[in-house]
């Protein structure tokens, strides 16, 4: 449906079209845009404070609600990481911490950061705020369900946090929740803690499904006139593909959570074999712990891309806007996003090379895993080729993008070590793995989140964040995070295993003590530096410079709303009509170095713009 009328130049103008055009001087031939097939969406406008700010149906408010809730969980996750680093670097100062505590912190940190922070932030936060604005819709197609989605997420977070306060504390099974240990004595929180975790995850999946349906259908059905699929900003492509992945992957998590709950509560044996504990044979038998791992990673690996694809999309847009240059190879970028998304369902068992699954799987999953490196590398090339011959503003947003490229390439390369089955054998379950995934799916997406915050804050709040504070925030975070995770790979080479409450006293590991102290100090500083952003936001909201409309001179629709910040309904009386892709920067012959998506071809008739 997207391309069929693009190439057809012989459309006749309809009289209503000329009337609907955004400017008076519409050239009927070249400016033709197919009329809308459906009528305008009717919006439910709030009638009270509660409807406006609490149970709100405006996707922008829901986006901010998601964002703030996710950031709250992120701060909890950050504090947990500090406690872990205190134990690893300075155990003499962490006398209050038992092994039980440590494993509970490890588990909650991992689960919070991956699911409740990153996933919710990218899809619930950025997705809700940006999708309707970027595709030119008034709101999500099912605003009421969208509101329910957030509140379901909120309850999921509340249940998760409640597990800190139940007898036995939260689960300490590791974020992968591998049975049988997860639900057995000997693992912290094997009672109430794990039950609340499983309930919280189930609620998250239910809430997320409601949101995900909205994102997908809004993108497929509610785009404004002229917004073909191949004219969508890559941000939307990334979020869209990630949502499709999530809709296919989360059911596997839900199923495994339900089965594990049954194993725990009703002593079924989905994942539980015959087990001898403390001299007694438990009432289990015949289940398969490896089955759980397959289900978990069938969700867990796409989950990596659920976080990464929106980051890919957003960073593409940020780089293009701030380098004043079209994104290089847009179509390649779109197909790379879609291709990575599809491939991500065929690589899950590369997390299980040494799990005891049939070893012959290794050949297949190593091959698929390394194939995924090709489209991923293409994306990296296209980012740096977008910089090439650009006109690059080195502002805070661009700095985060550059930081993303460095950390993402670094983490991507170490992924080739781990994906290459026999290289994984010595490195799996060591600190190399920790360093790899923190670099590639912790720090790299975080860089994008930060860049996106500085980029879109003027739209959301109508004020410009302070650049000076922003630069401090960036450099401390980037240099600090890099010096945490780059040296950490080398601990993995020594063979230091992950999830060790105390570092080992073996001679080949005592040398790691100094590095652990260094890493811990860096972690404290990087964590503290995040409060610069919070301070910056508070200061800007109080005294910051007012943002003009479209301060970055971008082309995409979110900057062309009727007011800044945009109101409910986004675009005032009339929806925008789209005539081009969002990357017409520095077009030869154009007066400005950008041409908004809403500019009709007849207005820029003397430029050498390529047809998109």
């Amino acid at each position, binding site marked *: 449906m997207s391309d069929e009328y693009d190439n057809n130049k012989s459309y006749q103008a309809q009289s209503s079209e000329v009337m609907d055009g955004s400017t008076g001087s519409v050239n009927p031939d070249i400016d033709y845009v197919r009329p809308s097939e459906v009528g305008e969406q009717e919006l439910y406008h709030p009638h009270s404070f509660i409807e406006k700010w609490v149970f709100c149906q405006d996707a922008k408010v829901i986006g901010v609600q998601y964002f703030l809730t996710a950031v709250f969980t992120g701060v909890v996750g950050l504090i947990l990481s500090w406690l872990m680093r205190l134990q690893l670097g300075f155990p003499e100062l962490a006398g209050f911490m038992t092994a039980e505590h440590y494993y509970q912190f490890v588990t909650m940190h991992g689960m919070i950061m991956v699911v409740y922070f990153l996933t919710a932030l990218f899809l619930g936060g950025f997705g809700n705020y940006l999708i309707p604005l970027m595709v030119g819709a008034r709101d999500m197609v099912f605003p009421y369900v969208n509101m329910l989605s957030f509140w379901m997420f909120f309850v999921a977070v509340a249940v998760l946090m409640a597990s800190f306060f139940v007898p036995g504390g939260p689960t300490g099974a590791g974020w992968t929740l*591998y049975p049988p240990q997860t639900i057995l004595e000997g693992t912290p929180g094997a009672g109430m803690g794990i039950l609340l975790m499983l309930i919280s995850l189930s609620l998250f999946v239910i809430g997320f499904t409601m949101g995900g349906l909205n994102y997908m259908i809004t993108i497929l059905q509610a785009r404004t006139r002229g917004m073909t699929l191949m004219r969508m900003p890559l941000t939307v492509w990334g979020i869209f593909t990630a949502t499709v992945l999530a809709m296919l992957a989360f059911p596997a998590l839900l199923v495994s959570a339900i089965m594990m709950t049954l194993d725990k509560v009703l002593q079924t044996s989905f994942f539980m074999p015959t087990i001898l504990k403390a001299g007694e044979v438990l009432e289990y038998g015949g289940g398969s712990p490896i089955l759980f791992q397959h289900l978990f990673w069938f969700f867990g690996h796409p989950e990596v891309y659920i976080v990464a694809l929106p980051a890919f999309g957003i960073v593409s847009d940020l780089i293009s806007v701030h380098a004043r240059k079209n994104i290089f190879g847009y179509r390649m970028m779109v197909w790379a996003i879609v291709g990575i998304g599809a491939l991500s369902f065929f690589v899950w068992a590369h997390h299980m090379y040494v799990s005891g699954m049939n070893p012959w799987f290794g050949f297949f999953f190593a091959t698929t895993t390394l194939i995924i490196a090709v489209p991923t590398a293409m994306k990296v090339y296209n980012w740096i080729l977008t910089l090439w011959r650009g006109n690059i503003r080195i502002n805070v947003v661009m700095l985060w993008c550059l930081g993303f490229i460095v950390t993402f390439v670094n983490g991507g390369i170490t992924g080739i070590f781990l994906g290459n089955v026999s290289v994984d054998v010595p490195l799996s379950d060591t600190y190399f793995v920790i360093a790899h995934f923190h670099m590639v799916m912790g720090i790299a997406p975080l860089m994008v989140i930060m860049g996106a915050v500085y980029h879109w804050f003027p739209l959301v709040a109508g004020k410009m964040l302070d650049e000076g504070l922003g630069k401090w925030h960036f450099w401390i975070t980037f240099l600090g995070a890099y010096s945490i995770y780059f040296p950490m790979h080398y601990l993995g080479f020594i063979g230091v295993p992950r999830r060790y409450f105390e570092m080992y006293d073996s001679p080949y590991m005592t040398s790691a003590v100094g590095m652990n102290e260094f890493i811990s100090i860096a972690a404290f500083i990087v964590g503290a530096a995040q409060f610069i952003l919070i301070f910056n936001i508070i200061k800007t909201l109080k005294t910051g410079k007012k943002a003009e409309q479209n301060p970055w001179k971008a082309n995409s629709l979110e900057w062309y709303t009727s007011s800044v910040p945009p109101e409910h309904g986004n675009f005032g009386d009339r929806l925008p009509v789209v005539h081009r892709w969002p990357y017409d920067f*520095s077009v030869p012959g154009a007066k400005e170095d950008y041409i908004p998506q809403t500019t009709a071809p007849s207005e820029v008739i003397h430029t050498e713009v390529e047809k998109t």
Partner: protein
Amino acid sequence: MHAGIIFLLVIVGSILFHIFTPWYWTDIASNWKGMDDTITLTFWVGGGVFVAVCLFMIYCVFRYQHKEDRRAEYKPEDKKLEKILTWATTFGVAALLAPGLIIWNQYVNVPKNAIEVDVMAWQWGWQYRLPGKDGKLGTTQVRNIADNNPFGINPDDPFGKDDIMVESDVINLENNRPVKILLRSVDVLHNWYVPQFRAKMDAVPGTVTFYWFEPNKVGEYEVLCAEYCGVGHYAMRGGVEVQDKADYEAWLGEQETFEQLSARYEKLNVDGNKLAKK
């Protein structure tokens, strides 16, 4: 300007760190040098790509800094360049994958002359069993496990009688002789891992997993549990002693068979009963 310089220092610092790092792998003590070599190869290829991409990015930051009077180039696509880059990447990836798969093929195919070592894991410790003179391990079942039968060997299985029970968390191995590690667990996941041997595999309750290696350096090594197994995970240690043939056989001769162990317990029982009667 400053930004480019700092990024450049980060890249240079990374390379220097890699060259001068005091933290690197332990001296290898098994046949899996191919794994180390593939890591080195991946370092060259992957590290080269990392440095090249970052240097190109830094060059762009220096060269194409924003100027009001300049315009960026307008060129949405370059099919030829994209094609070259795709094929070059595919080739590089294939070159890394090939040795990886070749070594994996060796890893999953155990040599015929490998001696089997049955490693049993529990929360939180290790035990070992070796085949006796018949060269075969007796079948086992978790439900048979008892004080007088720590491995749960089926009492009716003739192959089990002469199995050698190593009642210690340290196992001795013969130098330059391949071993097939059979992994079992009675409770949760574990992983029998010696960094110097490079190899590892999870022990999974309900099934028997395996891997193999050939120790090639006499000495004592520490065993670490490499799969999280509950609060005692970090303390779950064991040991390996690699010995020359003569020393190894002397050690082997001192170990008890399953039959001897059963007899010893029976005697204990009889003695115990006698004591009770008195």
